[in-house]
């Protein structure tokens, strides 16, 4: 059979389409990459080093579930030393060297604010983080970043309301002199005024190596009934509380998410006695030892027993790890929904999918279905530490702000 010219052109175009179409429509890479910066060194190294294995677990479990749209994921972790510009360099490097980077996990309020204006066009990626800074929950200016829980400002509001309900009248804010520490202070001041509480002290400290005796005398002189601590991870907050207790100050201490780790509280209790008894704070998720921990935690527990035998993670996942896991879960869930629609995994598509996470069953991170509103999941719970049981136990029901 002889083809004339027109037939030849049509035929070859058709053949080309048939061969090339899958490549265009289903240009699936061999893997999707999720980059992460963690503070493996520096002031918050303890947290970073416990979160890192959790990321490995996340990768393994999600690849068991088929990754994102059948493509396996790979998580690369780099150290930031809790220095925002290091994390930024890590992100830029990941952008330049990993063609299939679909999501990034940042490690500080500072980094998230630093990177936000860089997330434009081809440089944008979906971005979860360890931070609950309120500025990040802003879908208009900042569509790609989200919070895996209520913002620090929300957490402050909850604690201040708690104080008013208990009949308190004076409160002190003690915070680390970082963006993380300063984030909710101005807002907290306003809320306290609205609630008729008097803020008798606003004390900025170093994030580590703070001059504890001076800060404690400052607190003693202010005569505050309540003190909210913000911007610490492992250091400073237990020492401050210990110092106040040794002085016999009647001040009641409260904290936000990063000061709510059971392992740290236990370590402090073992070393310095029951100084943390009665300490109260906001934690969005269920603790890992929760009696009704749900399928997700069960699955983690089984994995941890095997993979992390002999490490502190064998039977326990710290709150920081839970936060990182949940944060990544949100991102991967959004990306899966994008993949299911057959769209490209661009940051814009992922940001749209984020808003579709409504009444979402997280499999046990929360005791209730949660929704992504304004790029944040405003659900959480108030817990209190008891030195006798050495556990944080809930004192409120699940609430959504």
């Amino acid at each position: 059979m002889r083809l004339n010219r027109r037939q030849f052109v049509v035929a070859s175009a058709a053949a080309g389409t048939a061969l090339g179409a899958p490549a265009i429509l289903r240009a699936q890479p061999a893997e999707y990459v999720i980059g992460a910066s963690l503070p493996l060194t520096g002031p918050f190294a303890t947290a970073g080093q416990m979160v890192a294995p959790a990321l490995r677990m996340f990768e393994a479990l999600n690849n068991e579930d088929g990754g994102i749209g059948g493509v396996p994921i790979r998580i690369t972790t780099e150290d930031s030393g809790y220095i925002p510009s290091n994390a930024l360099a890590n992100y830029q490097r990941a952008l330049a060297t990993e063609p299939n980077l679909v999501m990034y996990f940042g490690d500080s309020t500072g980094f998230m604010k630093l990177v936000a204006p860089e997330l434009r066009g081809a440089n944008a990626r979906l971005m979860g983080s360890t931070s609950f800074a309120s500025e990040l929950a802003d879908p208009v200016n900042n569509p790609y970043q989200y919070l895996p829980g209520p913002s620090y400002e929300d957490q402050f509001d909850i604690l201040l309301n708690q104080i008013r309900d208990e009949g308190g009248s004076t409160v002190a804010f003690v915070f680390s002199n970082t963006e993380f520490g300063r984030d909710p202070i101005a807002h907290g001041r306003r809320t306290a005024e609205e609630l008729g509480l008097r803020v008798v002290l606003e004390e900025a400290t170093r994030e580590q190596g703070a001059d504890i005796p001076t800060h404690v005398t400052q607190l003693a002189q202010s005569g505050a009934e309540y003190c909210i601590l913000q911007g610490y991870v492992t250091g400073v907050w237990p020492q401050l509380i210990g110092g106040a207790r040794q002085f016999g100050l009647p001040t009641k201490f409260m904290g936000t998410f990063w000061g709510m780790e059971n392992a740290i509280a236990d370590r402090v209790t073992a070393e310095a006695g029951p100084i943390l008894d009665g300490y109260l704070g906001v934690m969005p998720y269920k603790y890992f030892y929760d009696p009704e921990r749900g399928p997700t935690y069960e699955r983690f527990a089984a994995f941890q027993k095997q993979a992390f035998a002999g490490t502190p993670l064998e039977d326990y996942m710290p709150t920081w790890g839970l936060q990182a896991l949940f944060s990544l879960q949100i991102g991967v869930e959004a990306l899966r929904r994008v993949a299911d629609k057959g769209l490209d995994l661009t940051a814009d598509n992922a940001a749209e999918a984020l808003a579709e996470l409504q009444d979402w069953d997280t499999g046990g991170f929360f005791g209730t279905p949660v929704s992504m509103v304004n790029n944040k999941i405003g659900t959480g719970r108030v817990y209190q530490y008891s030195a006798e049981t050495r556990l944080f136990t809930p004192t409120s029901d699940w609430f959504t702000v």
Partner: protein
Amino acid sequence: MGQFLQFALNGLMSGAIYALIAVGLVSVFKATRVVNFAHGYLIMFGAYFYFTFAVLVPQAAWAPEWLQSWRPDWMVEMRADLPMFSPLAAVLDWMANLPRILLGLAGALICNALLGMLIERTLMRPLMGQSVFAMIMLTVGLISILSGTAQLIWTSDAAFVPALAPNTPIRFEMFGATIFLFGADLANMLIALAIFAGIVAMVRYTRSGVAIRATAEDQSTAYSMGISVPRVFSRAWVLASTTGAVAGAILATRNGVSPALGLFGFSVLAIVLMGGLDSYLGVFIAAMAVGVLEALTQWQLGGEWAGIVPYVAVLIVILIRPHGLLGSKEIERI
């Protein structure tokens, strides 16, 4: 007035620690004409050594039980019916920790002395007689090496270290306000002042002290008078690193063990220049003054302002008196 007194006292207590750190810097400068920018990081090593021997070693499986917590029967009896945070309970808790506190201090002193000697031998001695610039930058390089090494050895984990003295709260009324003091803080101040006085007396009256002063005066003459100048150098470094170890242990109990302790070195450097590099008295005055100023700034302006005080103070003093409060002027010839 009562408030003022409270913060002035706080300031004096941190001033004493500054003085303890500064004495090491001054001694090294007197003997070797080297100003150690990395002194803060030597202190940080002291703190980590104290942490190792007072917390990590007693926790080890092979360590005897009494090292971790020494509780003879009489102590348990006395402790039994005391309330949690009473003064006597604090003393007893301290005594239970005493074995590991002593082990920690001994370990910190020995290890830091070895570290000081090592630095002097390998890095400082080849640089004798080089320019000021080379000497400063060498110690600046040392900063990065020391902080990196500390991070490699000890992951920066939060931990409590036992206080050097019983942490009994002290409170009394004065000028119509309650003054709060920590017992351990007061003891730390006394320890720091005693060591400072001891070193000044040593430099003044003992043989090796005279050797240090002679070397400071004129190296080659000291040599020809039969003083072993290299030995003076290494003694000065050992002195600096051991006082640094004590300062590190104190700071570890006050502020927790962390790489941030290295930053104290810079504040103290400012204090030393403010007082005059080779004058113990001047440095003592500067340390106390900066301690009190910091505390008062903290009181009036808030925590974030306190950190800047030594730097502003040193700038002002240097502009008015280029060689510090009591430092001796260097005479330059062309």
